[in-house]
């Protein structure tokens, strides 16, 4: 019989494995049955949690941030590249833009309540119902059950026999004969003493972005109040990297400015309620500091109020550095302005909207307000730039280098190698947070990207019908590796009298804290106000290498800790990629997110290009290179000068 020290090994061969259960994986699960239902391919979805509440949308959302409606997807490309400082994969972004509305329309069909303008109530989007827009691309929803609804559709499509919840996949295995091809994956149950080994022809790796790589601002219980979900451990990036997949723009990060401590979202407050921000002295620091953008050439990526989000952070950080913080968001004035022409009934509704915005997606912020007796219509709140996050679906663009759709005219050869959303590893696909250089997809864009990848995977599998996956590693070896933290614990636990302090192993929790300390202090975390330089990075590199070595000495006293051990291993690989990319890019492309103090300028002549890397798991070596950026969509007059500059010659 299996027990903690001796797990049962379950082996299964499928055609397609979907790793993850968030928006992208659910999109893939829903779409894939359309194309395989009649040919009988075997599909399996594996989620480390429960699909109804897994991924970044687990808590719910109060807006869908990507909906084209009346907009041209080419303008969506312009918006995304403006926000991400000029360097994106325009083919991928356009592809999301041209498909995304079909996912949003499906959500409404499945029961998601989407706000409509007056006179359009009850009219579906597909019937011409006009949504309430909080911005050009955003629409408001009652999204408490957003994920529940989307997961239900996915589960019903796929069928319960093809879903395995509470199993955490931790490693991908290459093919025995082709090191550039994926053939299998291994993971373990977080409930039972079981190891799962899957062999497949193709796989969708969609396991989210990376959270808690950096020391957060709250270090007690509040570590959990991360802006992005605390269970996103960089598994997508780490597993792909260890499998040899090329990554892109891993130097990019997102530092969201949010309501202090609770990390309540600011989108609706800025866009829908038109709230203004100010420094401690009531000054409009954005107007005041606009001039500083010119100091390092950042102004090339600002055209009036239109600028990359990082530049807004930059102006705020200037105030904090100069001692003019805290930064306030003036919620009372915003509410009062809106209430001017409203009936008492409408004002009550407005107040409810303000609270529900948080209750739908950041409940903890309501707790902070209630605990501090803050009513947003009466008292201002502080806002604050958070610790850094790595992701590819929200306002960041770290991730994997994937093939584009290919049918978009002007696509250069290095953007396209056959199957949409396939990485540089044959058979390995990704979507959502996994796809790099293509941010601002958000929930809806991630869902549709999962659908796009699903269809492409079916094409890939049909083209490789007779191919049999054979893994380059034996099941026995893999089982040893996956359960090593358990073995380490069982072997050494009685060596000392306190199980948490032992020279033979490190607890996953301490491993995480060690990683966070390195990243925070040397790789532009909050304690240096997002600044780093070549020397600091050199030290970080050395410390991270030792941390990697110690990764093999993590312990797991139970299955829960085994989960944490592997999550933190994934965080370490992801963090190392981030550090290496920042080290390689000798400019400050994203001021306000991070600064290379030894290269403070934006340097388009040399760096208006992608930075791509690959990792060799066997040698621990990284290979990093520049890859040319090709602009597809013509800049229009309203875009800033930097967008119009030629790409760097690579």
């Amino acid at each position, binding site marked *: 019989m299996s027990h903690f020290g001796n797990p049962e090994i379950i082996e299964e061969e499928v055609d397609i494995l979907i790793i993850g259960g968030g928006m992208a994986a659910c999109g893939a699960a829903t779409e894939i049955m359309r194309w395989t239902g009649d040919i009988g391919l075997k599909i399996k979805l594996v989620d480390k949690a429960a699909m*109804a509440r897994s*991924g970044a949308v687990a*808590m719910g959302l109060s807006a869908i941030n990507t909906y084209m409606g009346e907009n041209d997807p080419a303008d969506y490309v312009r918006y995304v590249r403006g926000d991400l400082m000029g360097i994106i994969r325009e083919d991928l972004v356009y592809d999301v833009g041209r498909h995304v509305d079909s996912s949003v329309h499906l959500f409404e069909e*499945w029961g998601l309540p989407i706000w409509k303008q007056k006179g359009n109530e009850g009219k579906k989007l597909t019937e011409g119902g006009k949504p309430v827009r909080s911005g050009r691309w955003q629409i408001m929803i009652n999204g*408490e059950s957003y994920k529940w609804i989307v997961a239900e559709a996915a589960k019903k499509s796929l069928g319960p026999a093809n879903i395995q919840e509470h199993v955490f996949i931790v490693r991908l295995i290459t093919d025995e004969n082709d090191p550039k091809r994926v053939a299998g994956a291994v993971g373990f149950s977080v409930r039972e003493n079981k190891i799962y080994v899957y062999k497949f022809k193709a796989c969708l790796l969609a396991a989210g972005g990376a959270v808690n790589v950096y020391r957060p601002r709250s270090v007690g219980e509040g570590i959990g109040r991360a802006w992005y979900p605390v269970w996103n451990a960089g598994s997508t990036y780490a597993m792909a990297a260890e499998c040899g997949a090329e990554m892109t723009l891993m130097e990019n990060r997102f530092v969201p400015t949010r309501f202090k401590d609770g990390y309540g979202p600011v989108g609706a407050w800025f866009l829908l309620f038109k709230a203004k921000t100010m420094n401690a002295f009531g000054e409009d620091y954005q107007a005041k500091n606009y001039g500083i953008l010119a100091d390092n050439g950042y102004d090339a990526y600002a055209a009036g109020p239109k600028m990359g989000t990082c530049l807004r952070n930059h102006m705020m950080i200037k105030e904090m550095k100069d001692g003019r913080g805290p930064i306030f968001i003036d919620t009372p004035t915003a509410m009062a302005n809106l209430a001017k022409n409203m009936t008492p009934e409408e004002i009550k509704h407005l107040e409810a909207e303000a609270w529900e915005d948080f209750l739908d997606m950041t409940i903890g912020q309501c707790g902070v307000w209630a*605990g501090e007796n803050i009513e947003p219509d009466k008292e201002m709140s502080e806002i604050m730039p958070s610790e850094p996050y790595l992701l590819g679906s929200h306002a960041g663009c770290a991730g994997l280098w994937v093939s584009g759709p290919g049918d978009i005219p002007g696509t250069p050869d290095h953007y396209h190698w056959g199957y949409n959303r396939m990485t540089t590893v044959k058979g390995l696909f990704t979507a959502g947070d996994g796809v790099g250089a293509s941010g601002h997809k958000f929930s809806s864009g991630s869902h549709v990207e999962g659908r796009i990848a699903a269809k492409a995977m079916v*094409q890939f599998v049909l083209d490789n019908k007779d191919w049999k996956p054979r893994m380059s590693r034996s099941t026995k070896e893999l089982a040893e590796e996956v359960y090593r933290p358990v073995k380490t614990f069982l072997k050494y636990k009685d060596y000392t009298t306190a199980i948490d302090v032992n020279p033979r192993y490190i607890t996953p929790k301490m491993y995480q804290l060690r990683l966070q300390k390195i990243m925070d202090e040397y790789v532009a975390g909050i304690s240096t106000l997002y600044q780093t330089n070549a020397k600091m990075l050199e030290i970080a590199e050395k410390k991270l290498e030792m941390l990697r070595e110690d990764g093999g000495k993590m312990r797991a006293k139970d299955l829960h800790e085994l989960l944490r051990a592997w999550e933190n291993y994934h965080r370490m690989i992801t963090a190392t990629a981030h550090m290496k990319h920042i080290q390689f890019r000798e400019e400050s492309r994203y001021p306000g997110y991070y600064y290379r103090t030894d290269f403070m300028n934006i340097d388009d002549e040399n760096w208006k290009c992608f930075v791509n890397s690959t990792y060799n798991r066997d040698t621990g070596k990284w290979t990093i290179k520049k890859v040319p950026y090709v602009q597809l969509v013509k800049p229009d007059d309203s875009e800033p000068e930097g967008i119009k500059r030629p790409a760097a010659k690579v």
Partner: protein
Amino acid sequence: MPTFVYMTRCDGCGHCVDICPSDIMHIDKTYRRALNIEPNMCWECYSCVKACPQNAIDCRGYADFAPLGHSVRVLREEEKGTISWKIKFRNGHEKNFVSPITTKPWGEAIPRLADLPPPDEEALNSPLLTYEPEALKVDSGLPTISKDQFKQGVYY
């Protein structure tokens, strides 16, 4: 806001264990009731609070920044399609909000892929996804970029 469980209300059913995305709700082997084993990995997503049939789970604001004395309670009623919130401030002030969570009865408006005709080779090789182009609400198929939107030298 880490979750906590009321000793007298929890019956150890395990719904919270199943639903928690962070794997931190576990059943205590001695008390046979649920507990949060890792409060600093709690995202306060309320998934367990909403799923508990006994209303036995609540949240207490993160002790490192939220002052005591407040509460944010929730009742998610699937059959009614609503979510109700009761917010109590530290100073005793209260606020109540109700909003819809769905417009359809659960489980009915699911995709019925089997009702669609089997796809042919052409459909499989086109960039169109299921229900497209109809679901895009455009008459002319997928949106395309007109030539004048492209950079010269890239496309023509």
